């Protein structure tokens, strides 16, 4: 079972190492991890997706909470939160295939952010599933390079995870 965790952490050197080390040491599997600062520059927000059953998830949360640099840990349930991932994909694009690629891009409400005589870079945001889908479709043209961010996520409605 896949779970999404948001952690507010102090924006200090070494914090990422402590968290990554905790996961590897205790045998927790990270699917993706994204990190960036919050509206308060003293704090960063990490979105971590893990594969775990309920008991392991509880351990992950409790162990994270024990780290002095971790301020808050919340699980974001899929039914009550929104999550997005961004990917940029460099595909082979010749004269003959360019319009077909652009059609796919338009169906996925993605954007083309770079064009060269032999390639295009596609930018797409959405759920993990959506990005998997466009990746599959673009594969027929030849994916030259792909970079994904991992998920960022937030609770729906006016509730917030305070920093």
């Amino acid at each position, binding site marked *: 079972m896949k779970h999404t965790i948001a952690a507010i*952490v*102090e924006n200090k050197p*070494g914090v990422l*190492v*402590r968290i990554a*080390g905790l996961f590897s*040491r205790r045998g927790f599997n990270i699917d993706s991890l994204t990190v960036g600062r919050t509206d308060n520059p003293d704090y960063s927000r990490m979105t971590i997706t893990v594969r775990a059953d309920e*008991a392991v998830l*509880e*351990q992950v949360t*409790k*162990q994270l*909470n*024990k*780290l*002095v*640099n*971790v*301020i808050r840990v919340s699980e974001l349930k899929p039914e009550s939160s929104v999550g997005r991932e961004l990917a940029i994909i460099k595909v082979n694009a010749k004269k003959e295939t360019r319009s077909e690629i652009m059609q796919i891009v338009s169906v996925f409400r993605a954007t083309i952010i770079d064009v060269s005589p032999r390639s295009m870079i596609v930018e797409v945001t959405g759920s993990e599933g959506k990005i998997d889908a466009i990746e599959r479709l673009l594969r027929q043209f030849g994916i030259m390079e792909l970079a994904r961010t991992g998920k960022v996520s937030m609770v729906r409605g006016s509730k917030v995870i305070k920093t």
Partner: protein
Amino acid sequence: MRKMSGAEAILECLKLEGVEIIFGLPGGVLLPLYDALYDSDIKHILVRHEQAAAHAADGYARATGRVGVCLATSGPGATNLVTGIATAYMDSVPLVAMTGQVPTNLIGKDAFQEADITGITIPITKHSYLVKDAKDLPRVFREAFHIARTGRPGPVLIDLPRDVTVGELDFSYPDLDLPGYNPTIGVHKLQIKKAAQVLMEAKRPVIYAGGGVRYASASKELLGLAEKVKAPVTTTLMGVGCFPEDNPLSLGMLGMHGTKYANYAIQESDLIVAVGARFDDRVTGKIASFAPSATIVHIDVDPAEIGKNVKVDVPIVGDAKSALKELIEAVQPKTWSAWNDKVSAWKKDHPLSYEKSEDVIKPQMVMETIYELCPEAIIVTEVGQNQMWAAQFFTHKDPHRFISSGGLGTMGYGFPAAIGAQMARPDSTVFDIAGDGSFQMNIQELATAVLNEIPVKVAVMNNGVLGMVRQWQTLFYEKRYSGTTLGNVPDFVKVAEAYGALGLRATKPSEVEPVLRKAIGSDRPTVIDFVIPTDEMVSPMVPAGASLSEILELEG
């Protein structure tokens, strides 16, 4: 605000935290700090190996409940602390380890004696700091001591680059501001009510107490609860002494080398109240068959311990003292029951025992004699057979008088920890119960003991082998004694004398009491070489991976 150097500020912080003694060994980058120490009232005990500094600070902490402090230089000095820090981490000992570091402008350049000690110790510290600016020193020290001693205690490391110790600052001791550190205080009333209810309904309850009782100084409350509901009490190695072993409700220690009756009681119980214990594999045996019909109440100050190894029915997050106090209030008194009779019968039928001898010295008999001569002694142990005999054959009554490396199982821990304990309790008799293998891992500290007149008694159970590993080879590896024979060197009496300590030897049972009397009567550090049989085993024993029900009685 006063202007001072980083080194002076460090010593000021230590004073403000009530530190009277530190254990350490200097090096190049620590010269400014050691220079400031020269004029300070803080006592510095110079060890002969940094590992001993960490263990001594740990022993000091365990004997007093205060934060122990050790100090080592950058690079190899710092890495030599690692075993001591890991030992303290596994047993939740409040410790502040200070390490020197190369100047900030050289960090990351593979400078002489540089090691990334904060990186190395992340998995074995509660928290750690690399100080990059002298101005941060007061805040860092304030936080470090607070984190080390509160909640579930543990070691905190402070890495001090040389330039930080010479930098200037305006000293003021700041208030704590740790938004990410909120150890649990108080307990959940509803959970206490639930625990009280299952305790009242239970027919076959057992209280299983660990090191958390010791750190919360909750022995009195533990006794109060046990006597009110007539629940038998077993302790882990870390909890030894938390419950008086001469009390009729005491089951002694449980687990791999626990008593048969403790293990039987656990396996047949319908309720286990775990207090400050963590269901370690040496305690539970095969986890799937551990206490099969028991409801489990788990009290722990660390929420992450609850549900980590076993499924818990009533979790209570909180320190042992407050939780037990509330639980005592919430339960009604119970009377002596059929369960108590059954447990007492087990105690009578399966006592801890050994085959007595008039020809050779039995280590168990040495333990009993030390107890008879000196029941108030602080018993520190090394690791292995000596440790188990010490846990089994003394009648323990005070957790601060039994000091042992439980979680990490560090050979070489006992002697320096005994030095630390003796510094903390100068009026007590302190014994290090040692094996010839363990003692040799920090034997160089005889110099520290002699020069500082620390009258620790080292009782070496000398069997010429690494006894516990050999015991497993005897039982499970067809007596193929691979790598476990130490031989009969050195001559421990001569080693003691070479360092200027008192060296004594006993080879016959009749000599045990006289040499012990001589050792106890001496105000010098003393090594007593007890020559014991090579094949003496620790019994009973639950084989690794077996259920607690499968506990075996072993012949000596």
